[in-house]
């Protein structure tokens, strides 16, 4: 059976690929941390909520 990446996951993967790489923030892209503890510290400092993504090859 041909394996396909479902629509939502595909679109989100594109978002992640372009906007989500754990690298220094570009002006026009959303920065994604890859270290949860660091994200906690950042959230404390900025008083922002956290958006946590778990991505697994389940």
């Amino acid at each position, binding site marked *: 059976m041909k394996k396909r990446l479902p629509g939502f*996951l595909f679109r989100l993967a594109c978002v992640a690929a372009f906007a989500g790489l754990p690298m220094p923030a570009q002006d026009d892209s959303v920065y994604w941390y890859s270290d949860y503890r660091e994200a906690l510290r950042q959230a404390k400092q900025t008083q922002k909520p*956290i958006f946590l993504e*778990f991505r*697994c090859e389940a």
Partner: protein
Amino acid sequence: MLSPKSSTLGKQLSQYVCVRVVRMDDVDVGLFDRDWNNTLYFFMLNADEQIYMRYGGRDAASPDTYLDLSSLELALQQGVELHRQYLSGGAKPVARPKAIFPREIPLLVQRTFQQRQCVECHLIGNFQNLQREQAGILEKLTHLYRSPDIKTLGITLDVPKGLVVKEAGGAVQAAGMRPGDRITGWNGAVVWTFGDLQYVYDKVDRKATQIQITVDRNGESAVLDISLPARWWWTDLRFRQSSVEPRTHFEDRALTDDEKRKFGLKPEGFASQVKYVADLAKVMKTHDLRVGDVIVGVDGVESDEFADTADLFIKLRKTPGDTAILDVLRDGKRMRMPLKTFRMNFRQ
């Protein structure tokens, strides 16, 4: 670029500290407990690790049945509002669940850390169950049949709108749910997303006969008492791959009452007709069932409190490695045949 900061989603994500975790090795799986057979799952929380909501959840049809960018945007918007309330002291902190780390699950450690392999999400669920089985505390209805399907209750959601009901049939229709209602509570718990709903639904005692669903209808809140149908907890486990044992290598369907009468079988029995036999059954010589066979009993048992088919009876009542004796009707003749089960390699 699909989601620059100037896009709707980008603007919303910019209000959050975004973090992506792809290895579960050091994650508190007690705090971030979920159905481990989801490929993608999100939590919205704060720096005190108070979880506002979940976004995710799936069914057997597809990993993204309940995922949608519009509903994600709604959830992100709600998350910001909940955070504002939290910072202003308007939300009570909830007690943190007991911390559990993958390194505390011995069988998982053997299978992953000790072999320098990644702790994948589905392995956590599999090995939690294996650990439970060894400790004699595995409850198959709860631990194998995770995330009951809301369609069994008659709920079809308007997915882009979050928890707005598109169609209400069966048990929920009988309780007064209508299309357009927005589900806001499930058995007393506040739910914002399908992920929230599926998680709290999964916590319902499998012997429960009733639950309460709160809906918002034109700004008015209503609590509906839902009478749960038989086997409300049943879900299609085929997408869970290695999470279910014993495997039977066949699929069946429950006989109708008319068919049971025709065969002279008890109406309360779990007699079922084989509709599919996996090639693996022949290769591994696990059984000799054929499509069309009617399984009348297993080990002399013909009815069960929970099972309505022979396949379900075996999954619920037998242990991997057991051999069961099937009572089978084939071409009008009654016969007995063994069905061998095996423990999957990774569990041995």
